[in-house]
C-alpha cells in the first residue's frame, strides 16, 4: 500500500445490522483532504447509518475506520471530534433556547464555570475565519433556518475538524441558501478540508462533487464521475431506469371548486402563520403551494381540512362555506387529504392494511351495516385497492406499520382517492418515498386531476412542484408572494421563496445572469 493510499479518512468494510436488517453491508468509502466526496442514495439506503458509525453515534458490527493510516476507534462523538471529524446534522443539533455562543461551547466549555465572554469571542473568531457571519448572542429559535445551519457548520468546525460530514444539508434550505451552502462547501474544500456530502438530490451532486459513490439498500453499487448525467445517476441509485418527469397532459380547467378569501390562521401562541391568503383552484388543475418548510403551508393545509383555528377569511368548496367545518364535515363535502406526517397522521400503524383503507368511510355503506362493520366488504375493498395501487404487502391483514415508506404512502393515497373527490389536498406527497414510487404517486395525482377534482399540493421540493403544478403559489411567512407559472425559472422561484416579489425577483435574476455573462 502506498503512502498516497494511507492518507485521508477511510471506512473499510463497515457492516451495521439492526436486528436482522442489514443497514450497511461491508461498505467502504474514503475521503481525502481537499475533496468533496458525494454519497448518493435514496432514503433508507443506509447513508446516515454509515455516517453515524463514523461519528461514534452507532457502533459497527464489523469493519474498520482508518485515519491517516492508523486505525481509529470511535466509541462516542467526543472521540470523533478529537480525531478531527465534524458533522453537520440533517436535523440541527442545536438547543433552540440557547444562544449561538452557548451552543458553540456546549461540550467544550473549558472549565467548570461558564465563560460566555470567551464563548462570544470564539464565535466571532470562527465566523471571521470562515466568513460565516452570525450574531453570537442571538437565540437559535429566532434565527432563520439558513443561519441556524451556519451555526451548525461553525460548531462542526470549532474543534479544528479536518473532515466534515454534511448529512442531507439542503433539505431545509431555499434554492438561494443551497447555492450559498455550495459556495461555503467549496471554500472549505479549498482550505484543505475533506468533505463527505450526503444527499439524494442529483442536481446538487452534479454541481459540486469531486467524486461520487452510490449506496443502495446498504451496499455500494458503484461510483460515478462528476459529469455523469442525472438519469444515469438516478438509474444507479434506484437500480432501474426511471422517468424523472412524468408526461402530463394539458390541464382541462373547468369551473372554480375551491375558493379561499382572506384566510388568516393563528397558531396557539397567537402568531399569524397564514396571513390573508386569496386563491382559487378550478376543476382539473393542480395548484402547488411552494415555499421553504415552516412558512405556513402546513397550517394552510390544516385549515382546509378544518383542523386549525381560522381567525378570519373564508374557505368555499363547491359553493358551500366550509371555513368552520370540522374534518368530518369537510371530508363529507368531498375533501381528500394526504397529511404531511404520514406516520402520525396518515394511517393507524397498529391497524391492518384493510382497516386503514376504510378509515375515511367505515361509518357508511357499504362498509357498515347498522352498528356492525361489514368485514367482507372491507376485505374486498382492500384486495381491490392493494392491486390497483400496487401496495406491496404480504396480505391485507398485515399491520400498516410493516409497510415501507413508499407503500405506506400508496396506502394513504389509495384510501383518499378511492371515492369521488371535489378537492384533493396533499402535503409533501412523496417525502421519504423512493424514486420509483414517486413516479407512480405523481401519475395518480395527475389522473385524479383529470377526473375533474381540484388539486392542491404542498411541497418544499422544487422538482415536485415543476413536475406537478399547473400554477404555483409561493408562500413566505404566511403570505402569498405570488402565483406564477411552473415554467418560472428556478432562481426566480427561489428568490420568491425568500420573500422577494415576482417582478423584483425576475429583475434580480436577469441582472445576475448578465453579470455572469460579462
Amino acid at each position: 500500500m502506498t503512502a498516497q493510499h494511507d492518507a485521508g479518512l477511510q471506512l473499510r468494510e463497515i457492516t451495521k445490522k439492526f436486528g436482522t436488517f442489514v443497514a450497511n453491508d461491508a461498505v467502504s468509502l474514503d475521503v481525502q483532504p481537499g475533496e468533496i466526496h458525494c454519497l448518493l442514495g435514496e432514503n433508507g439506503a443506509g447513508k446516515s447509518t454509515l455516517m453515524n458509525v463514523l461519528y461514534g453515534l452507532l457502533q459497527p458490527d464489523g469493519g474498520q475506520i482508518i485515519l491517516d493510516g492508523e486505525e481509529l476507534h470511535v466509541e462516542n462523538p467526543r472521540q470523533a471530534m478529537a480525531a478531527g471529524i465534524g458533522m453537520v446534522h440533517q436535523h440541527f443539533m442545536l438547543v433552540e433556547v440557547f444562544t449561538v455562543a452557548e451552543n458553540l461551547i456546549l461540550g467544550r466549555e473549558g472549565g467548570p464555570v461558564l465563560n460566555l465572554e470567551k464563548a462570544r469571542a470564539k464565535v466571532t473568531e470562527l465566523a471571521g475565519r470562515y466568513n460565516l457571519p452570525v450574531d453570537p448572542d442571538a437565540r437559535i429559535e429566532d434565527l432563520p433556518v439558513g443561519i441556524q445551519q451556519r451555526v451548525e457548520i461553525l460548531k462542526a468546525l470549532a474543534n479544528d475538524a479536518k473532515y466534515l460530514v454534511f448529512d442531507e444539508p439542503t433539505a431545509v434550505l431555499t434554492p438561494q441558501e443551497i447555492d450559498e451552502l455550495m459556495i461555503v462547501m467549496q471554500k472549505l474544500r479549498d482550505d484543505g478540508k475533506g468533505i463527505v456530502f450526503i444527499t439524494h438530490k442529483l442536481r446538487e451532486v452534479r454541481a459540486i462533487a469531486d467524486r461520487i459513490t452510490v449506496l443502495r439498500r446498504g451496499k455500494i453499487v458503484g461510483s460515478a464521475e462528476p459529469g455523469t448525467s442525472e438519469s444515469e445517476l438516478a438509474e444507479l441509485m434506484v437500480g432501474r431506469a426511471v422517468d424523472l418527469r412524468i408526461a402530463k397532459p394539458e390541464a382541462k380547467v373547468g369551473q372554480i371548486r375551491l375558493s379561499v378569501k382572506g384566510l388568516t390562521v393563528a397558531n396557539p401562541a397567537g402568531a399569524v402563520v397564514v396571513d390573508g391568503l386569496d386563491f382559487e383552484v378550478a376543476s382539473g388543475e393542480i395548484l402547488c403551494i411552494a415555499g421553504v418548510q415552516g412558512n405556513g403551508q402546513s397550517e394552510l393545509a390544516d385549515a382546509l381540512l378544518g383542523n386549525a383555528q381560522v381567525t378570519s377569511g373564508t374557505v368555499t368548496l363547491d359553493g358551500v362555506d366550509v371555513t368552520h367545518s370540522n374534518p368530518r364535515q369537510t371530508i363529507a363535502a368531498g375533501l381528500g387529504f394526504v397529511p404531511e406526517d404520514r406516520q402520525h397522521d396518515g394511517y393507524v400503524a397498529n391497524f391492518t392494511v384493510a382497516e386503514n383503507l376504510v378509515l375515511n368511510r367505515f361509518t357508511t355503506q357499504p362498509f357498515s351495516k347498522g352498528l356492525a362493520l361489514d368485514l367482507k366488504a372491507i376485505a374486498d375493498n382492500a384486495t381491490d385497492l392493494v392491486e390497483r395501487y400496487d401496495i406491496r404487502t404480504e396480505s391485507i391483514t398485515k399491520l400498516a406499520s410493516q409497510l415501507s415508506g413508499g407503500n405506506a404512502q400508496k396506502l394513504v393515497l389509495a384510501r383518499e382517492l378511492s371515492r369521488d373527490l371535489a378537492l384533493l389536498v396533499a402535503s409533501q406527497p412523496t417525502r421519504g418515498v423512493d424514486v420509483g414510487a414517486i413516479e407512480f404517486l405523481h401519475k395518480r395525482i395527475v389522473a385524479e386531476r383529470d377526473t375533474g377534482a381540484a388539486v392542491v399540493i404542498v411541497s418544499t421540493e422544487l422538482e415536485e412542484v415543476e413536475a406537478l403544478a399547473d400554477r404555483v403559489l409561493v408562500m413566505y411567512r404566511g403570505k402569498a408572494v405570488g402565483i406564477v407559472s411552473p415554467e418560472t425559472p428556478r432562481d426566480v422561484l427561489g428568490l420568491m421563496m425568500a420573500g422577494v416579489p415576482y417582478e423584483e425577483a425576475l429583475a434580480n435574476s436577469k441582472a445576475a445572469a448578465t453579470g455572469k455573462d460579462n
Partner: protein
Amino acid sequence: MTTFSAAEAVLDQVVRLEKVESADQKRARLSTGSLVVAAGLLLLGLSFGAGQIAHFAMSNAFDEVQLPTFAVPAGPAVLISAVLCLAAGVGLISGRLSPAWRRAAGVVAGTSFLFGFLSWAAATSALPFPVSNQLSGTVATATPLILGALAGVIGERAGVVNVAIEGQFLNAAFAAGIVGSITKSIPAALVAAVLTAVATAALLALFAIKYLMDQVVLGVVINLLASGLTGFLFDQLVQPQSRVLNSAPTMQPIPLGPLANIPFLGPILFNQTILVYLAVLSVAVVWVLLFKTRWGLRVRAVGEHPKAADTVGISVVAVRWQAVLVGGIFAGLGGAFFTVGSTGSFAKDLTVGNGFIALAALIMGRWHPIWAALMALFFGFVTQMASQLQTLSTPVPSEFLLLLPYIATIVAVAGLIGRSRAPAADGTPYIK
C-alpha cells in the same frame, strides 16, 4: 452576485411574525378576567355585611420594638377593595391593556382582594390580625415548598419529571425524625433526611432513566411506596416506643445578630431556623449552578435537546442521573422541615400534599429557581393566612380555610398562569 445579496438581505433580518390573539389566549383572557370580577363581586357582597373596625397588629407581643396596631374602618375598606378588584377585572376582560398594564391589573387585583378579604375577616373579631406573625409564618411555611420546588427544577431542567417530591419529603421526614430521636442531633437528622431523599431520587432515576418508565406514573408509585413504607414502619416500629423513636429535637430560631432587631422586618426575616436560611441560600446556589456553570449548561441542554448534547460528547444518562440526585439533596432538606423543623415528631402522611404544592410552584415559576421560590412563598402566604384566620375565629368555616392553599393552587395553575413552556424534552426518556 446580486441574487445572493437580495436573498441575504431578507435572510439576515430576523423578522418576527405578526401577532394576533389566538383562541387559547382569548380563553385565558376571559377566564382570568371573569375570575377577578367574581372575586370583586364577592368582596362587594362582603362589604355590606362587614363589621365596624378591622385591627391589624404590626408586631407581636414578644418583639423588642413594639409597633402600633392599625385600625381600619372595615366597610369602606372592603368596598374600595371591591371596586379596585372589579376595575382590574373589567380591564383584563376588555383585552385593551398593554402587557405592562395587564401585569399592573393583576397585581392590583391580587392585593386588593387580599386586603379586602383580610379587612372583612379581621373586622369580625375583636382581636387584631397579626400581620408580622402572618409574614414570618409565611417564610417558615414556604421553606419546604421552596426546597421541594428546587429539587423539581433541577430534575425537570434535565428532562426528568419529578412527581415524587411528596414521597421524597415523606421518606426524608421519617428518617430525620428517627435519627433525630436517637441521636438528639439536628445535623445528624438533616444528613439522614438528605441521604434518604437522595436514595428515593435514585429510585426515580433508575426507573425513569434506565428503564424508561412513564415518569408521571413512576412518581405516583414512589409516593404511594413512601406513604406505605413510612406508615408501616411507623406502626410497627416507631409507635410502640415513641418516646425513644419519635421525640426528635426541634430547630430553634437563630437571630442573625443586630439584623434581627430591625423593627418589623427583623423578626420576620432574620430570626428564623437554620433550615429557612438554608432554603434562601439554596435558591441562589441552584440559580448559579443552572445558569453560571458548565454543569448547568449541560443539564439544560439534556433537558431541551438530549441528542444535541449527545452529539457533542455529553453523556445524557450521566447528566440526568446527577441532576436527579442533586435535586434529592434539596428535597431531603425540605422533608426534614416536617419533623425536626416543626414539632419533632412524625405522623402518618404528615407532609399532606406539600410535595404537590412544591410541584405546582415550580410549574408556575416556569422551571426557574427564583420564580419557583416566589411562587412557593405565595403558597406559604395562603397557608399561613388560613391558619391565622382560624385562630381569629372568623365566620368562615375552618374546613374551608384549610382548603385555601389548594384552591389557590388550582386557580393559579389553571387560570392565571395559562400555558407555560417546559423544557422541551421534559419527561421524555432518551434512547440512542
